[in-house]
């Protein structure tokens, strides 16, 4: 970002994750509403942001659907994407929601386990509430205080989820499952070794879900949303996957 000419201001408050960054961005915006342009990459925050992000991200699903029809001559049996705030996944799912034969699966960050603070799997472990102007599912305690989250992937490390995901989970149209840190790291290794593609740690959660699905559906066609590249994850991979390898 700096090479592109931006001045980057790191957030040092709270738990220094995406959630703290959104807190600070919203504060900055209300401090200077006439001079600030608020832009968020995830499908969270007050209306109309989740809707705007979905519309802009929906190019993923539209193109993937057309390419799938061209390449395979049919729709996939399953579409699998990772879910943090849920932007790539809502963009991927949107075009396929009316295709009822296509199974839609969102994979959340299972982190280190099921306990509060050990994961960022909001659909799996969250309850309804309001954060950042959105009524959705949240990782929170019984007093309504938002909990810190953990995931090896920074992009999934958020205690809420886009409101449309909460709706799709409640309606049953999308099934949500989790992948642990260790499983996601293994997903990174496998795609690197087998395909020469270095995926983002976030996207590796979708790979874990895809491997599970494929094992249960031999011969099926699966479409994976590979939402990001792993170049940005080098320091994390050195601390985790590559350290474990040396040991």
């Amino acid at each position: 970002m700096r090479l592109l000419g931006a001045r980057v201001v790191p957030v040092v408050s709270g738990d220094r994750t995406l959630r703290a960054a959104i807190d600070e961005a919203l504060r900055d915006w209300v401090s200077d509403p006439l001079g600030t342009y608020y832009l968020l990459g995830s499908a969270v925050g007050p209306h109309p942001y989740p809707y705007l992000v979905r519309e802009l991200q929906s190019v993923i699903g539209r193109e993937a659907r057309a390419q799938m029809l061209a390449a395979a001559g049919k729709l996939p049996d399953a579409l699998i994407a990772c879910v943090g705030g849920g932007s790539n996944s809502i963009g991927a799912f949107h075009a396929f929601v009316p295709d009822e034969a296509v199974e839609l699966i969102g994979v959340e960050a299972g982190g280190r386990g099921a306990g509060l603070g050990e994961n960022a799997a909001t659909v799996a472990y969250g309850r309804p509430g309001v954060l950042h102007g959105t009524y959705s599912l949240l990782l929170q305690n019984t007093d309504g205080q938002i909990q810190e989250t953990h995931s090896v992937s920074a992009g999934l490390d958020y205690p809420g989820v886009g409101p449309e995901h909460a709706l799709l989970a409640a309606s049953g149209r999308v099934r949500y499952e989790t992948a642990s840190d260790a499983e996601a790291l293994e997903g990174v290794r496998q795609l690197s070794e087998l395909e020469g593609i270095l995926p983002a740690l976030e996207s590796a959660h979708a790979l874990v879900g895809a491997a599970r699905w494929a094992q249960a559906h031999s011969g099926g066609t699966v479409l994976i949303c590979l939402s990001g590249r792993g170049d940005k994850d080098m320091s994390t991979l050195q601390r985790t996957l590559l350290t474990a390898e040396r040991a």
Partner: protein
Amino acid sequence: MSPREHVSAAIRTAAARGEPALVAYITAGFPSRERFREHLRAVADAADVIEVGVPFTDPMADGVTIQRASLAALAQGASLAWILEELAALRGIGPPLLLMSYLNPLLAFGIGRLAASAAASGVSGFIVPDLPLDESSELRAALDEGKLALVQMVTPVTGAERLAQLCAGSEGFVYAVTMTGTTGRNVAVPAEVLAYLDRVRAIAALPVCAGFGIRSREQVERLRGHVDGVVVGSALVEGEDPGEFLRALRPC
């Protein structure tokens, strides 16, 4: 007199003496749970209305002072249930009490039992900075039963039509944010802010209180005649002796 009328009347009575009413904010449970009652009593002796802040992990409308106070209070286990218990023990403390809370702790407590529990603790109303007027019907209906106030906030960039809606929809008083921004900064009170406050006051049937960044006697003097009250928050949370700080805002 209903609880929400009690809030309006306390501000009007004070303003009738020629000085803006003092609406004092403190974060419940900061600096310690043990000292909450002592703090509240000290503030009650010097303020006309008290806002008790319910701590929240993500106080998006607050500056660094109240963020830190909120997290410190949460670390000590301050919760809405505890605050209501403490306030119940302090019933009859004097000035009307408002709870200032983000929406999620209220939802977690349960909107269904909130109004009755708050009224039983002597609370006269709520300020919920992350609840827009358009989304407030559920809480409003719950508070209506006990005639508790739901105070609305307006800002210098609020458009004319919206300003009219917010003033008409408010109860207790209209909270006029004196600047665009989070709480806690010092504001020099420029002429355009006074003009904005006059505009709010011209259309509001309720008393108008200015808040966000008020910390000096000079500011209070400058605001006199343009508002019915001033809200003092961050400066009070920072100070050692809230009673003394509030008295310093009064004329000598």
